């Protein structure tokens, strides 16, 4: 079971709420995904409006709400937004996003680390979105991040696991759950991340902009489960030399 900050999740798929054609379709897709944690951009919701579409469309008892600071350019902005969100009742969970470049939306490593240090001290459960940098992952864990969320490729690009080698190091070294976030465009990408040993994946664009978000959500759920099962079962070693299924190693003489 996936455990983040002491909370147990039976689904290893986390989903986002942006880019959907309607909030009704968003809800249907999220239900179909079986996800238990959803991320919501604070810039999109009006926390002071009890009737806000995004906030009322999903049952807050059914899902762990992971508000995100999408749009923040530096640590100060992210911290300010997080504090206001918590004061308005958004809870302690936070997906920290500090993305100074609005084109690539790449996370700023320096500001993300700064904001993590501040927010952890203030009692937030911080899940930082980060580039797939193993050393940064170490620093963020030392600062008290509840999980790390390295990217597979640029957000929204559907390019899959372009950062594979760094992700492998991050996963091997991790003391907290590793959630591969951003760039996973097909269920096979999600399955690959899970086979590598990622603890969970976060999917938004690939589901939201697909022709049928509900079926795509089901496809991702199945892929995440398959990938995890394969990881737990133990994948065979792959290599360039052919190996027979019934080995005749020629060592029968040994006593």
């Amino acid at each position, binding site marked *: 079971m996936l455990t983040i900050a002491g909370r147990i999740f039976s689904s290893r798929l986390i989903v986002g709420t*942006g*880019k*959907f*054609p*309607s*909030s009704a379709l968003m809800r249907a897709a999220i239900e179909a995904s079986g996800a238990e944690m959803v991320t919501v951009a*604070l*810039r*999109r*919701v*009006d926390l002071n409006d009890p009737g806000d579409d995004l906030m009322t469309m999903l049952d807050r008892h059914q899902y762990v709400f992971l508000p995100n600071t999408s*749009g*923040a*350019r530096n640590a*100060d*902005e992210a911290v*300010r*937004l997080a504090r*206001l969100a918590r004061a308005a009742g958004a809870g302690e969970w936070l997906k920290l996003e500090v993305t*100074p*470049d*609005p*084109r690539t939306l790449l996370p700023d490593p320096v500001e993300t680390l700064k904001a993590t240090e501040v927010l952890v001290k203030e009692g937030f459960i911080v899940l930082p979105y980060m580039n797939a940098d193993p050393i940064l992952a170490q620093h963020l864990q030392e600062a008290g991040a509840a999980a790390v969320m390295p990217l597979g490729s640029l957000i*929204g*690009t*559907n390019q899959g696991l372009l950062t594979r080698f760094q992700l492998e190091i991050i996963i091997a070294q991790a003391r907290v759950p590793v959630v591969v976030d951003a760039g996973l465009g097909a269920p096979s990408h999600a399955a690959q991340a899970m086979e590598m040993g990622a603890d969970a994946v976060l999917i938004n*664009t690939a589901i*939201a*902009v697909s022709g049928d978000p509900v079926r795509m959500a089901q496809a991702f759920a199945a892929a995440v489960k398959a990938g995890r099962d394969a990881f737990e079962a133990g994948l065979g070693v792959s290599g360039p030399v052919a190996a027979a299924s019934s080995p005749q190693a020629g060592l029968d003489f040994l006593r």
Partner: protein
Amino acid sequence: MDFPPLFNDLQARLAAVTVREVERSLAAERLDVAGLIALLSPAADDMLPPMAKRSAAITRQRFGSTMQLYAPLYLSNLCQNRCLYCGFSADNRIERRILTIEEAEAEAAILHDRGFSHILLVAGEAPGRLGVDYLEELALRLRDKFAAVSMEVQPLSTLEYARLFRAGITAVAVYQETYDREIYASLHPAGPKRDFDFRLGTPARAAAAGMREVGIGALLGLADWRAEGVALALHLAWLRQRFWQTSFTVSFPRLRPAEGGFAPLAPVTERDLAQLLFAMRLFDHDVGLLLSTREEARFRDGMLGFGPTRYSAGSCTAPGGYGNPALSGEQFAVGDHRSLAEVSAMIRQHGFDPVRKDWDSSFQQAVAQGSQAA
């Protein structure tokens, strides 16, 4: 290519494009400047369907199935400039009006009640009556009610923009009107707007001041729209290289009937406008593309999903016109008269999500009320 480009050079390059170059550009993964010129050339006029398809796919991937909505709030129609095409020109005998801060707040409250979270403050150029003090005071009063407050007023200095940013202004739009220097000079015979280069440097000053978003644009109908489109894209690319933390938008306002009865010098059809918009999307996948109520409902409905990311709705271009629809003194006649609710319903019918809030005033540190920063 250098910026600003020579308009005549752009026209010469556009005229020389072959159909083969257009096909090559359409096949390319990313459009460079030569490719952009190809897609804006007459040789690409028959290629609208494949351009539309790519533009739609890129927009959907980047922005999702959404459309952002905003409304303009006209503060004043006082103006020192004599732009030949504009209803606010000092030469026109229209009913002149400048809203007091309280009147502006009341107009904003109406827009808020109608469901808007993003408003655009608009004013003619009369800095003695409507300057930075006025805008700062108003921004401080509006920032808690609205997720985003943009402005489209006279060009200011970097320090002035920085001060307004701290007061809660999130974005600045300033349109060059035309990138053709000669036509620009003939259309702006008097007033501070005569200075082509000061205006051209304005988006950079706003970005340097830390504004989250900067909007550029050309008023279509003044000069050759194809060359105008290339110049706009070059301006965008020039800004992107220097201000990597700023979001950018591009607007394509077409001349509308206005007081003064100015006839377009170079008419732009709906097909032309569509070609321009698709080419801009293929050139820059991340830029916000605006289509205002200058355009008719039929055109705006049809363009949904093909590239635009932001629509205005329920707009009135006369200061005070939301509270008192009988008021005259408008900048131009709008082409789409539907309310926010009607436009939202249309967006939903087309399978898109109307987005009213996509920012939060908490991103920006508030300055204390009444402080005189900078």
